């Protein structure tokens, strides 16, 4: 009974947010004096969304973007996790790789897209490389930070009981740094969604980024906003899914949507 009431309250709150945003948006459209073609109303954006849904255009675009983002998250996230564990635990690897990664981390993905196109071409590997690049750094940094901040007392205690190497990693280091690692993955999700759009703006014929860019080129601001709405929804959904999955698999780490 309590759960039903909580769900109703939650849905009601989401609806209230949606209505407030739509009302505010409509108000700005009608009273701000901004050129109507540059700021379409929610109704016009809704029509553009329906237009894009016809013929499965939007569904195809979303599925390709999600696929590219998903592969990037898996490849970049796994690599970032492994490197974070290594640089966090082994001093020489930390000394060698951390300055290099910090340098690369400062490069905006937008800047490397043309280079990747020149080197790797227009195919899927190039796009997945960009999304992997986007996922790698938040996961690496948070894993590294998590591993280096593991309480030394825990490690000494485990060592005194005979644990070392891989056993120490799985028994102490990984569980202790798990909350930080999960934060890294959570940040990586929004990062890959941003970068998949950037990657699809060049050399693509399908995907949300491609659709957004081609709408811009033909003055279809309503379509641009429709794509942005879809991206925002994807971002919210993927974050909620991640939190739900994490809370199920690691119930002792209660990730939350809201601040307490």
């Amino acid at each position, binding site marked *: 009974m309590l759960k039903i009431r909580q769900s109703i309250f939650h849905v009601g709150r989401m609806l209230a947010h949606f209505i407030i945003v739509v009302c505010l948006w409509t108000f700005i459209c009608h009273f701000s004096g901004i050129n109507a073609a540059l700021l379409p109303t929610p109704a016009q954006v809704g029509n553009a969304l329906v237009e894009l849904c016809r013929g499965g255009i939007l569904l195809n675009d979303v599925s390709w973007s999600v696929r590219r983002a998903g592969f990037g998250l898996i490849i970049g996230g796994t690599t970032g996790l492994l490197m974070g564990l290594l640089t966090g635990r082994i001093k020489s690897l930390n000394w060698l790789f951390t300055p290099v990664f910090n340098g690369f981390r400062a490069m905006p993905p937008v800047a490397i897209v043309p280079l990747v196109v020149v080197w790797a*071409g227009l195919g899927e590997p190039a796009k997945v490389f960009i999304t992997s690049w986007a996922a790698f750094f938040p996961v690496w940094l948070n894993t590294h930070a998590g591993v280096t901040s593991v309480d030394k007392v825990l490690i000494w205690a485990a060592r005194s009981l005979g644990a070392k190497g891989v056993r120490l990693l799985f028994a102490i280091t990984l569980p202790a740094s798990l909350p930080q690692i999960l934060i890294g993955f959570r940040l990586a999700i929004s990062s890959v969604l941003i970068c998949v759009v950037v990657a699809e703006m060049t*050399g693509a014929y399908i995907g949300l980024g491609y659709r957004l860019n081609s709408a811009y080129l033909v003055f279809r601001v309503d379509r641009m906003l429709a794509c942005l709405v879809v991206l925002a929804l994807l971002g919210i959904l993927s974050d909620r899914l991640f939190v739900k999955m994490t809370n199920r698999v690691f119930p002792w780490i209660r990730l939350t949507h809201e601040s307490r």
Partner: protein
Amino acid sequence: MKRLKLRLFIVILAIAFFGTGYWSCKSLNQAVGENKIIIAEGTQPIVAPVYVAFAKGYFKNEGITVELASFPTGKLCLDALLGGKADFATVAETPIMHASFKNQPMHIITTILRSRENTFAVARKDNGIKNVSDLKGKVIGVPLGTNAEYALSAFLGKHGISTGDTKLINLSPPEMIGPLMRGDLAAIAGWQPHIGRGEKSLGSNAIRFQFDEVYEETYNIVASTEMVQQKKDVSVKVLKALDRAIAYMSENPTDSIRIVSERIGMENNELEQLWPIYHFSLGLRRSLVDLLTAQGEWAIKSGYQNEKIPNMQNLISGDALRTIKPEAVELP
């Protein structure tokens, strides 16, 4: 006491932040509004009359202070105009056509260039491409929604092929060369100088498909409706300066090429080779309206626009040009 100091600090920071923002906007609006005309230009050789007029002081001679705002494409120039950040824009006809579907407050006051050779396609022979029909099923790089896509579509259509029979990949002209050389693309369609560089990069492996039978490109000066209706004298002065520039270019091609080369950072000899394909003149021809209408129909057919095609004649304003060169205006 600490809390009070913190609150005071936050208030001062907020005032400084918003004050700076307000002051910056005010300065920018002053720059745009008072005694200065901003021409958004697309950083291409076809903007030459504007560069020459600016370099030779023809705008100053007409009593107007001009600032050139450079953008990489004509579409961005038009965005600047429609966003109120420029008074005039140099732009090809296709972005104007797209904007016309949204009833944007703008008018074409003159064409400054016509060319049948500026936009074309280049293909790789080693992809089995010997003639147009071989483009069927091939991957073609083209900037979507632009005059290049329209011209390609018209060209393929003339040979009984639809763009649906090919796979079009969205790439800007500078981005096309690398993938073309790598072999990721069988062909590219775009405009000079990029398409020419793509052709050169392939050497003897290149085959050119000219669009001259189906498309004559125009490059135009667009002004806001406010400029056209309330400040016609400014438009007249700009056109007078451009007319003088075109006359100078005709008599002094070498110096004109030098001016353009220095302005856009293009090699002199590359420009010299391109120069003969450009036909600079002021004019408002009937064919411009026909072209805009044809492109409007293509945009609807391609799914880019979903509204009724507007009356393209309403986009043209010949009043200013008629003042200085009535014989150049074919439209009412």
